[in-house]
């Protein structure tokens, strides 16, 4: 997180006023979005907010477009969605939303007002932009379901650095406050990846709400929120693989499978696991791998794996087989898998096992972050 050179409010009792409304949403929806967005910060700090309907509030909230007299004009649809001023008198603390955007209440489409407002109020209270891609204060908008939104750790640390913690929160014994979500660290030796895949020469590593992209031109893998690229995809996916046959990446979670092509979800998806030839009894898969040598897709489920012929759209005979039958020495559950430069990598917990598909021999045991440039 970062702050505006420690600019902060001198009081914890702040007022706000909604000066006008967007026609994109009902008045009640705007009110609810704004109130909830302020409560995001009130929950974890001593700050308290009171609404006023006339006069000058500490935080004046308005919907406006184009050049609106503060030397920071909006730019029409897309681009800049909103901005806010650091704590201070007059314009300080004020929040402006770009009326040229389509703001929404529940929809995944366009820009959820609660999420945009919560970010802007962070500025109103003294936080600048964070370079943590998982933080609310990261400058790029990404969708998160507002119903399950929880202020990330980086933002909690930021606001508590300025104002301290919420004095009213006394976790009951046995019921600790839920831990704020934090951003996974590629260099954490205990990191356990959810899924890995290739995509047109890139390597992608999924963990929670995030994924890292690693490609030859980039010395450091780039961490992004999954929702930034594919708003429809869930977090905590089970498995992923690149289908060279269809030039798509298949993403698995529970009984559902999505196909992505670049930034788009292929229409007709999500489909059921059954559509991939898996029996009805399989409720989820642990890992998936496209074997270039045999042009078969391997699905790992518990101690077994299936071989799927994508061209014929059917499961190969003689499967499932025990994993250690096909991959000698692999005794623990495979949690992610892919092939890189002809070698097969099976991930299990914080370890990665390198195999040659020709000899079926285990060649090396590596750390999970071997490809993540640590």
């Amino acid at each position, binding site marked *: 997180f970062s702050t505006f050179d420690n600019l902060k409010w001198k009081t914890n009792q702040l007022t706000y006023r909604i000066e006008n409304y967007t026609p994109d949403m009902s008045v009640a929806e705007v009110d609810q979005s704004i109130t909830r967005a302020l409560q995001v910060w009130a929950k974890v700090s001593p700050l308290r907010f009171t609404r006023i309907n006339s006069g000058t509030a500490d935080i004046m909230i308005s919907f406006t477009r184009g050049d609106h007299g503060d030397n920071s004009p909006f730019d029409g649809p897309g681009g800049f969605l909103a901005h806010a001023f650091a704590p201070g008198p007059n314009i300080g603390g004020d929040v402006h939303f770009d009326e040229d955007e389509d703001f929404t209440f529940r929809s995944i489409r366009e820009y959820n007002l609660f999420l945009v407002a919560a970010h802007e109020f962070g500025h109103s209270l003294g936080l600048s932009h964070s370079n943590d891609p998982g933080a609310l204060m990261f*400058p790029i908008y990404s969708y998160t379901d507002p119903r399950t939104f929880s202020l990330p750790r980086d933002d909690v640390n930021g606001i508590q650095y300025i104002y301290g913690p919420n004095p009213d929160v006394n976790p009951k014994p046995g019921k600790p406050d839920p831990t704020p979500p934090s951003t996974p660290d590629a260099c954490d030796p205990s990191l356990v990846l959810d899924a890995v895949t290739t995509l047109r020469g890139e390597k992608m590593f999924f963990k929670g709400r995030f994924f890292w992209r690693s490609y030859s031109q980039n010395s450091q893998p780039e961490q992004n929120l999954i929702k930034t690229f594919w708003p429809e995809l869930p977090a905590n996916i089970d498995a992923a693989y690149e289908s060279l046959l269809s030039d798509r990446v298949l993403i698995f979670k529970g009984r559902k499978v999505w196909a992505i092509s670049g930034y788009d979800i292929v229409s007709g998806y999500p489909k059921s696991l059954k559509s991939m030839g898996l029996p009805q009894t399989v409720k989820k898969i642990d890992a998936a791998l496209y074997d270039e040598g045999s042009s078969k897709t391997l699905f790992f489920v518990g101690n077994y794996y299936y071989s799927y012929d994508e061209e014929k759209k059917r499961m190969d005979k003689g499967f499932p087989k025990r994993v250690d039958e096909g991959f000698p020495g692999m005794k623990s559950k495979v949690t992610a898998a892919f092939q890189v430069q002809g070698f097969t990598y099976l991930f299990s917990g914080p370890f990665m096992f390198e195999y040659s598909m020709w000899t079926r021999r285990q060649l090396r045991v590596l750390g999970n972050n071997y490809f993540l440039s640590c």
Partner: protein
Amino acid sequence: LPITPSKEDEVLAETYLKRFYNLTEETGPTARQGPSQRSRKVQEMQKFFGLKLTGTLDAETLAMMKKPRCGLPDVHIGH
């Protein structure tokens, strides 16, 4: 692969860097050595977003500039 930014992308990048990274018009003699101000500003932006520090408007950098975002400057706080 390196791409040649379109005129539109160049304008977008200039507006972006002026707004968020305090890019100013370069006047006077051009220095013979060292990266240009724009290249340094592009690198600053790339560093913030965890992109590869090329100092050029590559595809990744342009894609990041085009994403919807908060209009508050990242580095230099406007007064």
